[in-house]
């Protein structure tokens, strides 16, 4: 046994990447989970519309971060409500307060696709209503012209897109992305390095194949599997879990295509910088883990401290989750989703370009001096 232990230590010492991962990963997890793992929502992005919207916005409690206001006359109630709904649909806010809804009273719209934020908002409103009834029973109060403490008590509250606040509604669109990362990055990363380890890459390098032939030949099967997985996940999500698909299939498909483009490129890139399948898996997991934890899939982005949140905005899954939830739950149009589309396209081009460059070097005759 002693000999075995010594052998293992020697091998471990020489496998610098594994050693680094064993040391770095716990620290990384500690930082991420410490700062990101929070379901507590302190900021609720809010828009206010209707007569006196500007004044109402200033009267809101601090946790309601007013992103925009839309001041309208009493005659423009319908327009103000439509504007508020559009703001929620396009993901600009989680709560929309219409100072005068269709029935004349205040209307509060909550985006149920932002589950934790919606729950936090509902708790806030419930607390305000409780406070309002206490105040009314102890002292006479004049009519509150804005949806302050008293107005909230009379407001109609509607939760849109996910009225029952089901977890499966927000998880399944995001999980589709995780599966694409798993197939696109983790599995693909093994494909090229397996050729290197088996010694067949050298054979490919001298065969009459262009690097593009090998590159595409390697990723097309994974692409097909990723697409099949995506379809299965969505079909099960819709059929079994009742997750709605309210938006455009084409918009969703385009977003998924761009996202797969990024994940496959990442997979090949990882493969081309890894010597062994073990190293490839380690690197792939190191890209998968932050995406699962920081993309907003589990923890709300607004709950992650700024010092760590910027990482979330670099991760492709953050944008795919935004697209998939937006399209599936809120029927968000491509016009309002262009930032994640553009980011994924740019990231995909950069990652795939780098992967092709590395791949060409991988396939080209080895360096010799």
């Amino acid at each position, binding site marked *: 046994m002693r000999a075995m232990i010594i052998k293992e230590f020697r091998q471990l010492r020489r496998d610098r990447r594994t050693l680094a991962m064993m040391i770095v990963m716990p620290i990384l997890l500690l930082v991420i989970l410490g700062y990101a793992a929070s379901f507590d929502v302190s900021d609720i992005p809010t828009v206010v519309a209707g007569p006196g919207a500007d004044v109402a916005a200033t009267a809101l409690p601090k946790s309601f971060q007013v992103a925009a206001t839309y001041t309208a006359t009493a005659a423009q109630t319908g327009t103000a409500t439509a504007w508020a709904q559009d703001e929620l649909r396009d993901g600009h806010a989680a709560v929309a307060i219409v100072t005068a809804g269709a029935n004349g009273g205040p209307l509060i719209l909550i985006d149920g696709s932002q589950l934790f934020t919606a729950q936090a908002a509902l708790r806030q409103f419930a607390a305000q209503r409780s406070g309002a009834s206490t105040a009314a029973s102890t002292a006479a109060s004049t009519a509150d012209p804005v949806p302050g403490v008293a107005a909230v008590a009379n407001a109609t509250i509607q939760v849109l897109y996910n009225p029952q606040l089901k977890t499966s509604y927000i998880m399944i669109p995001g999980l589709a992305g995780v599966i694409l990362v798993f197939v696109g990055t983790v599995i693909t990363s093994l494909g090229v390095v397996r050729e290197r380890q088996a010694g067949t890459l050298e054979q490919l390098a001298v065969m009459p194949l262009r690097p593009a032939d090998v590159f595409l030949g390697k990723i097309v099967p994974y692409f097909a599997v990723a697409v099949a997985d995506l379809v299965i996940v969505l079909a099960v999500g819709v059929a079994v879990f009742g997750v709605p698909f309210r938006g455009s299939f084409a918009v969703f498909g385009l977003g998924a295509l761009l996202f797969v483009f990024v994940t496959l490129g990442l997979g090949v890139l990882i493969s081309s910088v890894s010597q062994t399948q073990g190293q490839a898996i380690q690197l792939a997991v190191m890209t998968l883990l932050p995406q699962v934890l920081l993309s907003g899939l589990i923890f709300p982005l607004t709950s992650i401290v700024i010092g760590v949140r910027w990482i979330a905005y670099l991760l492709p899954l953050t944008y795919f989750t935004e697209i998939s939830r937006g399209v599936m739950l809120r029927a968000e149009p491509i016009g309002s989703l262009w930032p994640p589309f553009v980011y994924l396209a740019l990231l995909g081009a950069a990652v795939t370009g780098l992967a092709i460059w590395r791949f060409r070097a991988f396939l080209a*005759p080895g360096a*010799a*001096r």
Partner: protein
Amino acid sequence: MTGTAGGDRPAIQWGAEAVSVSFGGLRALDQVSVAVWPGQVTAVVGGDGAGKTTLLRCVAGALAVAEGTVRRPGAQRIGYLPPDTGVYDDLSVAENLEFRSAVFGITGAVVGRRVGEYLERTGLAAARDRLAGQLSGGMRRKLGVIAAMLPEPELLVLDEPTTGVDPVSRADLWWLIARAAAGGAAILMSTTYLDEAARAAHVLVLDAGRTLAAGTPAEIVASVPGTIAVVPSRPDGVDERRRAWRRAGTWRVWQPVGQATAEVAGPTAGPSAEQGAAGLPARGLVTPDLQDAVCVAELRAELDGADA
């Protein structure tokens, strides 16, 4: 792309000229040249770490050279057997050959005919549906050779095609190699078997990345200076020991030109009444073959290095 031709050699010549390759601080090849002519086999021999694989990789195009020149046909016309056979363990024998055919654009009845013939000749026909990873080492090697030959290339680069293969299969593989050469292929192969190298038209002897000898087997044998004596056991003298090697149950001692007779006499060689022209014991002298010539070349390199 054509090179110089000499004598009755065909005009087109593939190979490497003054090629040097380093890996880190290690000089794997140092100004090595090798030529391969259509219809002929050139064998590269040498001990472990001599640079055989590196040279073959350079010629096949799997390794770039910063120094020297490599002449080879286009990838469509090269067949290459890498050290680890280059076959996919998780594909069957037939699927491996199907893949290779498709990459080289071999289609239709030609594929079936060639594959059938090669598999039959090498005894792999019964294993055509077995995964390559489930084959024995020798069978995988044969599969690798077949795969390299399948496109009937102009230049065939085979890295130790017969290593680990049983004698019968070796004969089968040599039949294939000879047939490819007869069909006009230029064949560059490395081998650790000097009896195989002796069958080649040209031999290159490498040691530690340097050329020790090159030419036809006869030329290399003829270039051995001095004589070689057979003794039944290892010589006693320090100097003789450095020039001795074991072969087939006896020892052979290389005697450089001008060495005294006594220096080569082994402890049990017994007295010899007959003396050779150079003062050597005529009894026990052998006519060197390629194996002896290569051993002498390696000993000379070693002794020269030690003296330097």
